[in-house]
């Protein structure tokens, strides 16, 4: 992909983000932060590439460390979001 295609995706995604986030109800802003935290750990993709590649042991070690850090975030972020969301209940009628 060339730079312009990537930039286009990025700019469009910023607009999508703007509208989607404004539609989030304020009552769920804390779960929103927890889940954005979890999904921003998609940088684990980069960490996996580094950890799997041969050629530089330094790069591999950094990659493995980043995989571990991002995993804390991914598992912790989704789990804590699920835990919070499970508490939101409607009035019993």
């Amino acid at each position, binding site marked *: *992909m060339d730079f312009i295609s*990537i930039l286009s*995706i*990025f700019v469009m*995604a*910023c607009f*999508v*983000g*703007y509208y*989607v*986030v404004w539609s989030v*109800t*304020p*009552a*769920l*802003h*804390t779960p*929103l*932060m927890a889940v*954005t*935290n979890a*999904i921003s*750990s998609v*940088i684990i*993709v*980069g*960490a996996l*590439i*580094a950890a799997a590649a*041969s050629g*530089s042991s*330094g*790069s*591999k070690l*950094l*990659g493995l*460390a*980043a*995989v*571990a*850090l*991002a*995993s*804390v*975030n*991914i*598992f*912790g*972020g*989704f*789990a*804590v979001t*699920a835990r*919070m*969301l499970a*508490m*939101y*209940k409607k*009035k*019993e009628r």
Partner: protein
Amino acid sequence: MAHVALPAWVMLAYLISGVCFILALRGLSSPATARKGNRFGILGMGIAVATTLLIEAPVPPGGFLPQPTIDDLQTLAQILIAIALGGAVGLITARRIQMTDMPQLVAAFHSLVGLAAVLVGWAAYLNPAAFGILGLDGAIEPQSRVEMGLGIAIGAITFSGSVIAFLKLAGKMSGAPILLPKRHFINLLLLLAIAFFLYGFFDSQSPIDISLITALSFAIGFLLIIPIGGADMPVVVSMLNSYSGWAAAAMGFTLHNTAMIITGALVGSSGAILSYIMCKAMNRSFISVIAGGFGAEAAVSGEAREQRPWKRGSAEDAAFILEQSENVIIIPGYGMAVAQAQHVLREMGDLLKKAGVNVKYAIHPVAGRMPGHMNVLLAEANVPYDEVFELEDINGEFAQADVAFIIGANDVVNPAAKTDKTSPIYGMPVFDVEKAKTVMFIKRSMAGVGYAGVDNDVFYMDQTMMLLADAKKMVEDIVKALQR
């Protein structure tokens, strides 16, 4: 371009993963769809990780695991162990964390994203061939150098800033602003230096430049957050949320990865919007929050207060009036959470509802320590979410309310925000509690003032009943009186 083109199915998988993340946030538009949203998020992450492992892990050119060597298997094992270790830590933390401690947890998680971005940036620098960013001349492509440098810089700022925010929120470091002389000048100088070395790195790909970018970015993250006081931490946490997104986006540019770019843009906008909402709720400009120092001179104004008459009520008086009411609006603030009064408060609400009283909860955007924090605390205490209302949705109802029941909040009900131009909280949107027939104000004593350090006219109104006690104790006593 020496960028190795990825197979089409891989690009498609990353795109689907990005779409899943959009759906994850979209689900949060209502508590009813939120759980499904979270599952979309997990699915998206699963797709991204699985795709990467399939193409990157021990796959010699030509297909999936045709003839894995011992080395390949070892690498795969290392990766799986790293995921298992990190995952276990994350799951245990998520299970154990108290809901009141959610802001520090989120700050800690932000710091991890930041640090991971720095590590990935460095890994890409050390092994550019693996990332497909090696130019034909044997050097890293110039464009990738800029993206990499930016990713490392933003990641490092996110990391050190979040660590400070974590320490302040967790009370391991004083929440008071730490003001260095000439701090704006120092910060500006550091920013210029980072920009300079970024150019240097673009120009020469020198290890010294990228080391300096990393070190200076760690330093500026630290310096940016230490002057910001505890009251402004909700803005800071949101802002760092945004930064962690931009760091992921910068890495996505380096890797040409759609999932990362979409996520980065989503998270970046999310944090930016939350910062904006928080600033508006405090009527503070983003610049003044970032400049720091708020709350430094707060303690002084409490001394100069004049003595004015006020009325003290007992738990029995309060219970009697509450029982006779038709409409009661409860305004919880962070003090309620500190006193751990949310469960007994919900019990009081249940008793009143049984007595035919219409009970609603009113939440100010800055009621907790982070956006939406108070909603989570009430949800944890089993308060149904359809009894909980935001400021603009309920503010018109105070005129019909028999009782405004204020517990652990102060600045958010202070009418000075509407009338007194000299007040530090002037312009902040507040609840119109003075329109309610009776105001009950739970407060530990008459001595303390709110976060902003200003006196509150609500204490001295004719219809106000001051309930002076620990919040939990007072509500327990009211519950006892109601049960009689």
